[in-house]
């Protein structure tokens, strides 16, 4: 077999099309890709959750009774879980965002560095989420 034929066989049939099956099972994102799509998803989630956060801020500042109610409300486990998820979303968006600011300045664009900083962003966001979760409850 020629070299090109070996390559083709190794890569599987071409062309490939983007469909749900390909996205879920065939295309495996590198860590930089995960940072990217989660940056987008976390941003969208935070936008949607904004109205909820504003409602809690509004109630907690409106009166002493409102403050106590929100405090109690935030202690319910589904609320806690949702808040923790939002804290993670914020931390991820923050850490990945700072990474993008450096990329915009042409810092850390080499493949190895880009992958390393991606892992660092993941680690940092999970660590900060854990610390904040522990501090809050």
């Amino acid at each position: 077999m020629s070299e090109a034929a070996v390559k083709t066989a190794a890569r599987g049939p071409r062309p490939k099309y983007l469909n749900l099956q390909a996205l879920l099972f065939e295309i495996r994102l590198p860590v930089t890709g995960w940072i990217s799509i989660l940056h987008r998803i976390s941003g969208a989630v935070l936008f949607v959750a904004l109205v909820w956060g504003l409602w809690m801020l509004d109630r907690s500042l409106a009166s002493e009774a409102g403050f106590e109610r929100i405090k109690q409300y935030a202690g319910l486990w589904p609320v806690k879980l949702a808040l923790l998820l939002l804290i993670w979303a914020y931390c991820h968006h923050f850490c990945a965002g700072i990474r993008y600011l450096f990329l915009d300045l042409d810092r850390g664009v080499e493949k190895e560095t880009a992958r390393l900083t991606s892992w660092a962003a993941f680690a940092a966001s999970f660590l900060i989420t854990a610390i904040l979760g522990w501090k809050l409850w």
Partner: protein
Amino acid sequence: MTQRVITGARYGLRDWLAQRITAVIMAVYSVIALVVVLGGVPITYRVWKDLFSQGWMRVATLLFAVSLAWHVWVGVRDILMDYVKADGMRLAAQVLVLLTIAANIGWVIQILWR
């Protein structure tokens, strides 16, 4: 020649740059807010209310809210441009997002200057 779309971006650097500048403003606010909330006294209603009654906190929070509004607009618009292909649907979604952002800004002002 490029096909221009009415509901697209304005093909410029402005929004891209604005998204980055607002990101930095929000990052600074986040760190300061975190230090204030976690580093100080336990948060009771008095402490919480007093914090948001101070002039600098109100102005800083409003600055954060306006930055967030602009940042969100660029980000959500990018998402809509990527995934919503029908022009009418995209325009409707963008208008809805803009109205939501405007309402949120109004609410923030109401919360801060009650």
